[in-house]
């Protein structure tokens, strides 16, 4: 038996390792480095209804053990993705998780409906960290009722399971998780980036043109682990964990916390071969830890408490 093979709603994964949305484009660039078919899945860049240019530059800044980004959801739009990106990805034997974004409920619904029909899209990832124009820019993912409503409407139209990507910038992550589970989410992905900022000492101005940005990388791993630990004990849907994963030990930590699969974001920029490397190292690590199958250890950190 393949110790890495796992089954999640809509997803039959040869291994639980996949690139995170926005850190891998639509796969073209990394396909120069390795065969994308070896990946567990691919979470493609957020797709919005209309194509978007995104924010002004600079769009990234470095921070201690992390980075900030404010790309601003630049993407070719639903039609662009359906016409140029998804068909190109069909050459690989890998399930696609389509990250869906928008600035109003209707956008999400429209994108979800269409993109979920693409043959290689096996699941949606609902990016609810986007500002909602209807509530004055407050992110969908910070108000349980708003997130619940959005999830429901997307579930209604999607032809594939829907994973909701939680924003960590909330007081009560469990409440958010339960709200979307309630609304029918098939799974969760967490965490998206923490809101952060850096100021340039020389200019006195924020480094990012957008001023604030999303913090990712190893710096945020303890926050992600804590949230997954809390949420996984309170929901009955699987979690794809992400935030700062760089080493195979980090993956084990995510599983122990309660994740059923993991995604790799920022680390792709540091090492373009990070995903294949981790896919190679994970079974070795499991053997070392005498774990027969990766799914055995999901939530072990809290399951061991009850014993």
């Amino acid at each position, binding site marked *: 038996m393949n110790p890495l093979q796992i089954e999640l709603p809509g997803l039959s994964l040869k291994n639980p390792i996949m690139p995170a949305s926005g850190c891998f484009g639509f796969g073209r*660039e990394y396909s120069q480095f390795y065969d994308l078919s070896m990946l567990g899945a691919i979470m493609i860049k957020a797709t919005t209804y209309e194509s978007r240019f995104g924010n002004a*530059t*600079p*769009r990234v800044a470095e921070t201690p053990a992390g980075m900030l*980004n404010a790309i601003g959801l630049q993407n070719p739009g639903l039609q662009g993705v359906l016409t140029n990106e998804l068909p190109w990805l069909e050459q690989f034997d890998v399930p696609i998780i389509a990250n869906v974004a928008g600035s109003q409920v209707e956008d999400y619904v429209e994108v979800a409906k269409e993109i979920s029909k693409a043959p290689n899209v096996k699941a949606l990832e609902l990016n609810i960290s986007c500002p909602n124009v209807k509530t004055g820019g407050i992110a969908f993912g910070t108000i349980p009722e708003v997130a619940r409503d959005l999830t429901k409407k997307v579930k209604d139209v999607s032809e594939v399971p829907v994973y909701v990507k939680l924003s960590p910038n909330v007081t009560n992550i469990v409440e958010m998780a339960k709200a979307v589970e309630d609304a029918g989410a098939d799974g969760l992905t967490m965490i998206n980036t923490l809101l952060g900022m850096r100021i340039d000492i020389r200019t006195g101005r924020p480094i990012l043109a957008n001023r604030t940005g999303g913090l990712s990388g190893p710096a945020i791993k303890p926050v992600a682990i804590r949230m997954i630990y809390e949420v996984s004990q309170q929901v009955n849907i699987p979690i794809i964990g992400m935030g700062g994963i760089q080493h195979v030990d980090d993956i084990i930590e995510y599983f122990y916390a309660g994740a059923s699969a993991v995604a790799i974001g920022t680390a792709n*920029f540091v*090492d*373009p071969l990070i995903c294949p490397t981790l896919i190679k190292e994970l079974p070795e690590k499991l053997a070392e830890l005498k774990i027969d199958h990766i799914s055995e250890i999901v939530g072990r950190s809290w399951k061991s408490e009850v014993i």
Partner: protein
Amino acid sequence: MIRQEDMTIVSQKLIASNIYELTLKGDLVEEMEQPGQFVHIRVHQHVSPLLRRPISIAAIRKDLQTVTLIYRAEGDGTSLLAKSRSGDKVNVMGPLGNGFPIDDLGKGQVALLVGGGIGVPPLYELSLQLRNKGVEVIHVLGFESVEKSFYLDQFSELGKTFVATVDGSLGTKGFVTDVIEKEKIDFECLYSCGPLPMLRALEERFATKKGYISLEQRMGCGIGACLACVCHVANDPTMKKYQKLCSDGPVFRMGEVMI
């Protein structure tokens, strides 16, 4: 092809105030062809500084399997790089981007290479390659001061070389554009790399000329995946067309993108 490799430091020298010349050896040199391409360097293996640093290729020696980079040690990453010694390994990803095209010019034609500060390094390999084709190269190099100037002898060996410094401590006091004006330099093609105000001044002054400029931007991936480094395409009313500096650039035709 783009690859990553642990290259070996052959030498590292301080050649001007805070400016280092780093020579690396490795198979990756085989992939390096175009002047103006860059490499993306991981200065060490820890989690901080996290990101790679883009540095231009300054000279390629296929015979020695070496590549030379010239960089300013300023922030966390480059300062750390400056501490590494011969024999150490450095993880290099590259070669990246599209460099300066040299096919437009032939024997006897004149190329004007204008560099400012830490934009000077890629012009050296460019000058080498143009000279090898028999193109006449004229260099106008701008620095803040004599302490921060470098590679003047090397450029002088390849062609006429003028210098401007902001403080007048070397060459003409002022900017590269002052020198070009003063020396009434004429040319068939302009190649430039340096600070934005300099590039803008050149684009404006030589709007009708053929030329190429190399841009800088903060980067994530360095290969076109993260969209950190985009710029608008010039004269695009939709404002939605873009180029990725890392994979479409860093060199663009003058007037091609909004700067």
